[in-house]
């Protein structure tokens, strides 16, 4: 249970009780701010929670729930997800969706259905399926799911699902990816803070920095 006391250049010394660092870091990863709340650092915990979760959810909304996915339809890792999963539990449904759809099954939380590019009726290629129509061959449609991989084959010549997401949502999809990625990366800073405490410059460090500066000036 390490308690760190920072003697600042100005003001009162700061006491930070990190409790069990490893558990705090795990909680901080699991849900943004949870590690700090466990350590009793409520204000910072709430700050991290509000900032990171609002960024992640706004990004997910901009990408219409599709911009966070763990793998593509061929099972290949989506590299953005490495950063996005830094946000912890809120990004983990993507893994569940990848496992669910890996055998060609439909995802949980279906958002819409589309006709595949090689559908017989050329005029209806990749149109969103109207659920009120009864005469649609449902077994052939591609189903978008919340945080699910882009369904259907990956094609360089025909429009595939990922291409249609970019086409439908324009720059919003890319910005959604950016927001969710930044949220994940920011949570990594929060995990570091929960594990090691804040990177406050102490009196000793400040004096050391000034010594170095003076030495450089002297050399010049």
């Amino acid at each position, binding site marked *: 249970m390490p308690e760190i006391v920072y003697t600042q250049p100005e003001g009162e010394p700061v006491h930070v009780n990190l409790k069990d660092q490893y558990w705090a870091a795990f909680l901080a990863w699991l849900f943004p701010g949870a590690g700090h709340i466990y350590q009793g650092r409520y204000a910072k915990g709430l700050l991290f929670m509000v900032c990171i979760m609002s*960024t992640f959810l706004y990004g997910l909304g901009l990408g219409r729930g599709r911009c966070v996915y763990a793998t593509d339809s061929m099972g290949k890792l989506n590299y953005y997800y490495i950063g996005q999963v830094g946000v912890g539990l809120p990004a983990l449904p993507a893994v569940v969706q990848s496992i669910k759809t890996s055998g060609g099954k439909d995802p949980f939380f279906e958002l819409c259905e589309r006709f595949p590019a090689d559908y017989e009726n050329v005029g209806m290629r990749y149109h969103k399926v109207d659920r009120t129509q009864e005469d649609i061959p449902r077994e052939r449609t591609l189903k978008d799911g919340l945080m699910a991989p882009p369904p259907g084959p990956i094609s360089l010549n025909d429009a595939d699902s990922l291409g249609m997401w970019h086409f439908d949502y324009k720059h919003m999809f890319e910005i959604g990816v950016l927001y969710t990625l930044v949220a994940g990366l920011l949570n990594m800073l929060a995990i570091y803070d929960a594990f090691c405490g*804040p990177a406050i410059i102490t009196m000793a460090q400040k004096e050391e920095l000034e010594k170095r500066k003076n030495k450089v000036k002297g050399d010049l």
Partner: protein
Amino acid sequence: MMPIATIILFSAIAKIWYSLPLIVVVSLCYGATRHEQLREIVIYSIKTAIWVLGFMAAIFLIVMLTGYWI
């Protein structure tokens, strides 16, 4: 006459608004990893945000001037 590169730059200016929430959030989170008390976090965040905005403005100017040069 304004060069094409500069026109393209100005046409994308509406998308720059998306960076503002990110600058606020990144500044606050970065400030929170450097300080423990809220007042100091906010002061440090404002400094970080100004630094980021200045850096973005510098890049914007470089790209705009490069447009004239091209």
